[in-house]
């Protein structure tokens, strides 16, 4: 069993209204050192079988990521 972590982020050129709203809220709270804020997803999977990284990439291709608007990374924590 491998624990696989997939991080999905809005692409740099994609609007991130959630990040913008949080950046605004932080600024209102006095955190005036904050510049850009981006908000993504953190997906943790337990995978059995061979080559969990290849399986995870296949899942990203098929469902987990929309590459028009998102980038992703896969890490395996054995």
């Amino acid at each position, binding site marked *: 069993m491998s624990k696989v972590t997939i991080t999905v982020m809005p692409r740099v050129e994609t609007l991130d*209204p959630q990040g913008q709203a949080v950046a605004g809220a932080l600024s209102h709270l006095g955190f005036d050192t904050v510049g850009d804020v981006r908000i993504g997803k953190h997906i943790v999977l337990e995978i059995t079988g061979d080559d969990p990284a290849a399986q995870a990439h296949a899942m990203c291709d098929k469902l987990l990521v929309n590459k028009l608007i998102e980038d992703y990374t896969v890490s395996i924590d054995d």
Partner: protein
Amino acid sequence: MTDHIAVIRFPGSLDHEAAGRVLREAGATTIVVSHHDHQLPQGTTGVVLPGGFSYGDHLRCGAIASRTPIMDAVRSFAEAGGPVLGICNGFQILCEAGLLPGALLSNDTQSFICKQVGLEVVDADTRWTGDAAAGSEISIPIKHHDGAWQGDPSQGRVIFRYVGENPNGAHDAIAGIANMDGNVMGLMPHPEMACEALLGSADGALVMGGVLAQGVAA
């Protein structure tokens, strides 16, 4: 010839009854088809993907619905030239399925918007605008949280743009876009909610009529 329209219902679809009613009043027969069916009913002449919140909008709006068994049948129907209309969540599903270009992100207001909007008919040469002329304006309501279309408009045909204020931050104020062939169209506004003067506008009949042979759902 009678139109036979398949209205696809996913878990979380909301507006399948409203869409079906409008089309039945225009003389079509309608049938609600389940997301886990593998085929459209024999003799289907048009397909509607209705509004709602399929699969609770989890992962991305429309993402899970776009991978259900019925979508392979919808893809085959579309590739054979059949008319397919996606309304709101249906638009999101068609984009996620790759049948329309682009993707829909959350509104730049970060809020749910429910109001009547004006739409400019940009391209009047598809089946989706009835006899409306290019540049004319129609009035249809929107009700969505994730309606900001982003993508490359040159990969499709822009059918509708928001007039005046861009309510959700959509790229180029695009409200509805079709594929290059023009037989598949998705829009965020709800034409099925604007087909009777009593409801404030009957302009939606032009759009709903796109799935019918005679062109106007009135």
